[in-house]
């Protein structure tokens, strides 16, 4: 495999790993401490938001009932309004993962990996989540993850928000969000960053393909978006994202940047993002329908300082680029009663790829498409016992270079160059307390990386990647 192909492959690997780790949606008790309100004020069961939770988020996480440390001038100009106690929270996830069929041994020798994986912890996170100053708040997460063995920045959303009283006593909430993951700032759980599965194993096998807006760029970009919520019904948002890679340095200075051709998949200029949604409430019901999307243009990059480039040509951050245009629709229905809670969410993401920079060397086709559909139904009884049944499906163009066959041990390859993956997730949850969750989750693949039987060309079937996952999830 040449270096360009390796670059794209590495990118896809990184993408797959991010996809696996994407579920990072969290609700945090610091909001409860700050507002003096119970978890159910904002959630059905964490992390799914209800209408109040969505408006709380749109208002910049600033609603509070705490006495502030204040500073004012003699002219009553406000200089400081600081929470008496910082809105801090912690989260721990401990899990056990069992694959239906063990992975081949990574040494390449005969034999298998362990059949089960204990993650202790899978993640440990510290949050600052709440008000920073009047009209300014944040949801920011610092996470230790056992797969990387490092502490790093996780989902972060820093906001300014304010509201207007319009004629006839209608409201207009408006604000700006500075965040590091497209859709992490969104209000509904039908979009990727806070969508189901809310927690998933990091010890399973992830499919090769995922769209860019579907968690691929999480914590790899910085975005500034402006939004408005009219009458708590109509939501609109536009913004721009720019590469903000973690752990990448300039090879000359050793500093944090600027990015150059040694970095992979660097956004050309900025990527536009847009979102529109409408929510209607009646009685115990609410229904949201919306669209979101973005256009990402990437320089493949991935050159090395030593070689001065890839395959004989420098990987400069100029010239041809790959373009990914993601357009998605989503919906969310919620029924919230005292004892019975039900929700149905779904999204369809369609990605059109123009692979001008990668065609021939790293992609078989100059144009590819990828479509992901997810639908999940959730039910809870008294917010204590509940579960989810979810269907997921990704289909796309057959592209033997992008979804390459590769040799042994296979597993994360595709024998026929197809990205098609689909399956089901069933999950049961028990919450003895509103901030403690015990989960049993099973993921079944009907198809994986384009096939059902021998999908990787090395004899592995899609069902071998079926995953049983036990999770203890505590937030406090």
């Amino acid at each position, binding site marked *: 495999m040449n270096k360009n192909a390796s670059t794209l492959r590495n990118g896809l690997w990184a993408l797959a790993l991010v996809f696996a780790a994407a579920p990072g949606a969290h609700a945090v008790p610091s909001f409860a401490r700050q507002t*003096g309100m119970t978890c159910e004020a904002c959630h059905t069961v964490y992390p799914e938001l209800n209408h109040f939770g969505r408006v709380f988020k749109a208002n910049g996480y600033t609603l509070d009932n705490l*006495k502030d440390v204040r500073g004012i001038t003699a002219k009553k100009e406000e200089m400081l309004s600081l929470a008496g106690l910082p809105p801090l929270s912690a989260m721990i996830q401990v899990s056990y993962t069992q694959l239906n069929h063990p992975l081949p041994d990574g040494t390449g020798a005969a034999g298998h990996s362990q059949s089960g994986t204990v993650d202790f912890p899978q993640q440990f996170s510290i949050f600052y989540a709440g008000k920073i100053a009047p009209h300014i708040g944040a949801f920011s997460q610092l996470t230790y993850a056992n797969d990387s063995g490092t502490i790093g920045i996780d989902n972060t959303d820093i906001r300014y928000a304010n509201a*207007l*009283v319009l004629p006839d006593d209608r*409201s207009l909430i408006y604000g700006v969000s500075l965040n590091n993951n497209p859709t992490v700032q969104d209000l509904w759980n039908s979009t990727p960053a806070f969508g189901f599965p809310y927690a998933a194993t990091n010890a399973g096998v992830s499919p090769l393909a995922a769209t860019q807006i579907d968690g691929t760029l999480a914590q790899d970009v910085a975005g500034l978006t402006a939004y408005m919520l009219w009458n*708590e019904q109509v939501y609109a948002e536009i913004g721009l994202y720019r590469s903000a890679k973690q752990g990448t340095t300039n090879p000359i200075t050793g500093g944090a940047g600027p990015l150059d051709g040694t970095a992979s998949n660097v956004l050309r200029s900025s990527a536009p993002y847009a979102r529109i949604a409408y929510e209607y409430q009646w009685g115990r019901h609410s229904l949201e329908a919306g669209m979101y999307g973005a256009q990402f243009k990437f320089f493949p990059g991935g050159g090395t300082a030593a070689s001065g480039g890839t395959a004989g040509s420098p990987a400069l951050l100029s010239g041809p680029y790959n373009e990914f245009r993601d357009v998605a629709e989503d919906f969310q229905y919620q029924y919230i009663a005292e004892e019975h809670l039900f929700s149905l969410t779904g999204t369809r993401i369609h990605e059109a790829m123009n692979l001008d920079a990668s065609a021939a060397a790293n992609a078989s086709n100059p144009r590819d498409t990828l479509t992901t559909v997810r639908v999940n139904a959730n039910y809870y009884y008294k917010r204590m016992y509940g579960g989810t049944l979810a269907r997921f499906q990704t289909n796309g163009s057959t592209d033997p270079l992008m979804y390459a066959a590769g040799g042994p041990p296979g597993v994360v390859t595709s024998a026929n160059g197809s990205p098609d993956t689909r399956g089901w997730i069933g999950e049961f949850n028990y919450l003895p307390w509103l901030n403690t969750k015990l989960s049993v989750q099973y993921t079944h693949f009907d198809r994986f990386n384009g096939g059902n039987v021998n999908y990787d060309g090395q004899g592995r079937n899609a069902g071998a990647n079926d995953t049983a996952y036990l999770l203890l999830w505590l937030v406090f």
Partner: protein
Amino acid sequence: MKKSIYGTFLGAACAAMFSTGHAESPDAAQSAAATRIAVTTCTTCHGPKGVSISPKFPVLAGQHASYLAAQMHNFKSQTRGDPDALGYMWGMAATLDDDTIQGLADYYAHQTPPPAHPSHSAEVARGEAIYLHGEPDAGIPACATCHGAKAEGTDTFPRLAGQQPQYLVKQLRSFSSNLRNVAVMHGVAQGLKEAQMEDVAEYLRTLGP
């Protein structure tokens, strides 16, 4: 940290867009501040102009100001302890000062109560009988005695006409269990069966302004 320049500019621009151009009196300023809280915060649960959409949350439109103010003080002092008072309103009311409480009470008292939802079901008929005449054999007085023949309420007793049935039943349960500690209502609610609570609540939904 000082207010951001962006925030100040945007706030000023928006204020200019929607300003009436007149200097406000203290009362008007208090009223405007209360309206802002009602429209930008309370409305999320209690609905536009105090007519809640979700049956979990009470209708506030047309409620007596004195009753509303008393409840907000009870939330603030944490002396009203029914589940949603504890879970929602203790936090919401914690930082409200007396002027704001009075401003919010006045705002909702001046809103139009929700329209009647007429029904001639057997459930409603049973509820009407209990509401107007009580259950003398069970020692349950007529609700109308305190809350009025049309459930319009008084300065002391809340308006019940048009209230959300789910909310009313939950309150009756809370009176019965003394989570919401009101001696008069504890006696009444203890004598009511669950089905009777629901009948009365459904009847009250049929009453309009």
